[in-house]
């Protein structure tokens, strides 16, 4: 018996509505691959991905599967496995819109929502073509006289409210608190999202708040709308202290994704193999 809303991976995927703004964790923050497959099976359309600050195979798969309309990100890459082929193809052939950004801007826009302020200032950015291609960003004269730079120009970025965030984590406790460890960007994402769903490797019979050490590594249940058990839920991505990235599968994907046809074939196999036993 747990004291929180325990749902299935399929149920989580159903919460991802067409055209919603979906928060995407980086490869090191717990990639919710098991849910991603279900989203693809649901043929969800028009997703807008907000990456903090980048995406790897998750974003590339969603794009290749035609689920994505727009992506706001600092990078899409398969890391050591090369460029993200479906993303490249989608951009080079104008299949999706892109809001090219830079990591600290993606953080700051969520921090604005976290504080419920309409914008955040950020230094840098000016003089880049990132700025020149973003009509949601503006520049103001620094209204403070506390800077050493005279007549300073500074960028202001809009607050971004996510519709839904999904990530994979190691553990939840019986009261629905989620262990995120040092991955505090997950807290920022959660604070800035209307709905938050989490898949976990295990649900443990304790309350993380009974230990100050565990509490410090916890995202409180207050921000979590539903949790699903999903063993190996990040596979083929890795999960700290649980499993490393599956280098063979990643190479296989990187190779297959080069062309739409081989990608489609790969995805058919990937889906039919039912890699996440407990869905």
């Amino acid at each position, binding site marked *: 018996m747990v004291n929180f809303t325990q749902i299935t991976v399929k149920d989580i995927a159903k919460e991802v509505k067409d055209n919603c703004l979906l928060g995407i964790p980086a490869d090191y923050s717990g990639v919710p691959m098991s849910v991603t497959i279900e989203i693809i099976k649901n043929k969800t359309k028009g997703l807008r991905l907000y990456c903090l600050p980048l995406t790897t195979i998750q974003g590339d798969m969603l794009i290749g599967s035609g689920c994505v309309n727009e992506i706001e990100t600092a990078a899409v890459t398969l890391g050591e496995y090369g460029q993200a082929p479906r993303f490249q193809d989608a951009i080079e052939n104008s299949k999706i819109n892109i809001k090219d950004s*830079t990591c600290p801007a993606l953080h700051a826009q969520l921090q604005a929502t976290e504080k419920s302020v309409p914008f955040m200032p950020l230094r840098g950015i000016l003089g880049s073509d990132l700025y020149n291609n973003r009509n949601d960003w503006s520049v103001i004269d620094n209204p403070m006289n506390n800077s050493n730079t005279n007549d300073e120009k500074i960028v202001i970025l809009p607050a971004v409210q996510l519709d839904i965030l999904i990530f994979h984590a190691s553990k939840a406790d019986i009261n629905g608190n989620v262990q995120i460890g040092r991955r505090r960007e997950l807290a920022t994402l959660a604070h800035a999202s209307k709905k938050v769903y989490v898949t976990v490797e295990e649900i443990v019979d304790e309350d993380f708040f009974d230990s100050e050490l565990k509490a410090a590594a916890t995202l409180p249940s207050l921000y979590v709308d539903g949790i699903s058990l999903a063993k190996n839920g990040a596979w083929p991505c890795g999960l700290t202290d649980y499993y490393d990235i599956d280098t063979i599968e990643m190479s296989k994907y990187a190779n297959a994704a080069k062309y739409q046809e081989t990608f489609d074939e790969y995805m058919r196999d990937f889906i039919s193999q039912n890699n996440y036993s407990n869905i």
Partner: protein
Amino acid sequence: MTEIFQSEIIISEISNLLKDDKHVAIGAASPIPGSAALLAQEERKNTNLKLQVTILHSQKFNNFTDGSRELFDASAQGRIDTFFLGGVQIDGEANINLVGTGRYPKLDKRFSGSFGSALMYFVVPKIILFREEHTPRTLVKKVDFISAPGISPPNIYRPGGPKYLITNKALFSFNKKKKNFKIEKINPEFTLNEVIKSTGFEFKTNKNLKYFTMPSQKRIHILRNLIAPKVLNFYPQFAKKLWFN
């Protein structure tokens, strides 16, 4: 004498550029800079000037605890001395392009994206540009897309910026006032003329042009025995190819 790989020479050269640093951070997909930083750290282990190395894609060499924004915050606070940036294209005014070639947004060839460059390039005092491939398609007259500009007007807050550019052929320094690169060292396998021909932008030549320094046997020993196993942890593909094949 053992054969020394080209990558090891570049690692050694980069390591020399980190001399007075206290904290070097290494971002995404940077195995050579990462190896160089760990090498510098190891060599200074028993001195008073310790080097802290933060490798973002490692658990062990990443002592940040405030999530992935901490690198950017700490850099903006002036706590990071050196950071590395690459580029699909780099031009003669040190503008870097990490986004792609062709006309934005429908590019001919799309690359991964700008990562944190549009802030890091402004705030970290010593940015070392690193791009192994040294050809007219990587070192260009003018980048197709500016992920981050090499120089900024005086009304932009900019304590940081480009200091060096290193490739498999040469090491350049950047002069902020003159807005140009100057060649400092050359890979002995190439002539200056070959370097000029491989470079899409004009750079300042150097009467005191030096060759890349061959790493000492001791340094190679440290690199292969102490650093390589560490690199294997967080850049497995790179380390396997170079050291463990």
